[in-house]
């Protein structure tokens, strides 16, 4: 907005534009193919369960995530059918619903088979009850339900969730690739880490968009993105990139960080972190065309 000589600017009518609802946006399951993330303490995810066989299966799953968390995270598993008392719904994703529990707790239910979790405020332990039906689908339960519980627990130590992928290109720039929901299914999980300027901790990889022999992909645990690319698959013959304003980029980032809605006390910090990320990087909406896969440097040339 242009300033006048006395510092006053022409008045523009205040406006409000609804971007979208986050109710239909899912948290992706945590992938097992993740780089190790360095931290001060060699903490881990610990499974507690009286049933040794169940504990062994779930501990193997937890170990496969290779998360070295700043503090220990405990999933305390009981076998049963009792659901905790829940109040209002906080957030729904396919198969998993989060509720407000008693005294500020977060509760979650798996809808595929009876399973529930209670996360007391500030605690790094989730109390989880799995029914026999859930035990019969233990791998699915771990990937979908327990993975969603971990996302909420890790948020409490400042690891905020964002669905995307990251790479460092051959030119040295850090790339954060965010797929528009429902378009590129190979979405991966990231966490933004508090206390650093928009720093991203890589938790998973998967999209082939900028991977290739010339790209040092996924080898670094921490990348400060210089470029945010919001990708979709186009029908054109050539890949296209359109620059986005920071505000537009932030609106799109929120779509990939729907967990921002869970736990009010953490929402402002999560939102501020996404804002920093949108401010620090140049952002582009990218429509991918098949030619990109035969000319890997095409995207970098577009955003040079």
């Amino acid at each position, binding site marked *: 907005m242009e300033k006048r000589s006395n510092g006053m600017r022409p008045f*523009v009518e205040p*406006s*409000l534009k609804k*971007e979208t609802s986050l109710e239909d946006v899912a948290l992706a399951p945590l992938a097992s193919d993740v780089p190790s993330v360095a931290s001060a303490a060699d903490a881990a995810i610990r499974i507690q369960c009286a049933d040794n066989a169940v504990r062994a299966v779930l501990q193997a799953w937890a170990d496969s995530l290779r998360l070295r968390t700043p503090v220990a995270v405990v999933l305390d598993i009981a076998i049963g059918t009792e659901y905790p008392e829940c109040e209002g719904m906080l957030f729904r994703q396919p198969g998993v619903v989060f509720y407000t529990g008693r005294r500020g707790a977060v509760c979650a239910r798996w809808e595929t088979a009876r399973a529930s979790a209670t996360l007391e405020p500030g605690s790094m332990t989730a109390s989880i009850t799995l029914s026999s039906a859930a035990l019969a689908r233990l791998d699915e339960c771990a990937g979908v339900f327990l993975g969603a519980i971990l996302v909420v627990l890790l948020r409490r130590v400042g690891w905020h969730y964002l669905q995307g992928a990251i790479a460092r290109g051959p030119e040295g720039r850090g790339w954060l690739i965010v797929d528009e929901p429902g378009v590129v299914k190979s979405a991966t999980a990231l966490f933004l880490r508090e206390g650093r300027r928009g720093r991203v901790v890589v938790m998973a990889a998967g999209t082939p968009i900028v991977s290739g022999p010339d790209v040092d992909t996924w080898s670094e645990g921490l990348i400060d993105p210089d470029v945010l690319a919001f990708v979709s698959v186009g029908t054109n013959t050539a890949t296209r990139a359109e620059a986005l*304003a920071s*505000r537009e980029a*932030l*609106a799109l980032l929120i779509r990939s960080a729907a967990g921002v809605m869970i736990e009010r006390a953490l929402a*402002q910090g999560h939102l501020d972190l996404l804002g920093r990320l949108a401010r620090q990087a140049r952002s582009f909406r990218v429509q991918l065309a098949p030619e990109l896969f035969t000319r890997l440097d095409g995207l970098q040339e577009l955003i040079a």
Partner: protein
Amino acid sequence: MSAYYQRHPGLRLTSVEDEGIVLQLDTHSYYSVNETGLLILEALRQPRSADQLVDALLERYVATPEYARECILRFLATCHGSQLVVRLDAA
């Protein structure tokens, strides 16, 4: 008698390049606001009347008070309908 307005408790707000992104945690919706809308929502950390908002905006922008007030009331009504602001008891 003039109504006072304040941010809804479910509102979270952050700014980028003089514009804002607003989350409504209860309705799971989010919005973008322009520069003047951001200024109003930032001012509504504390209860404010429409007249107080007019004064705040006219410290920075050029407009007639009548036009500014009309625009602000329209914006407040939109925000109220979206559960972004609450209308408090008249003082």
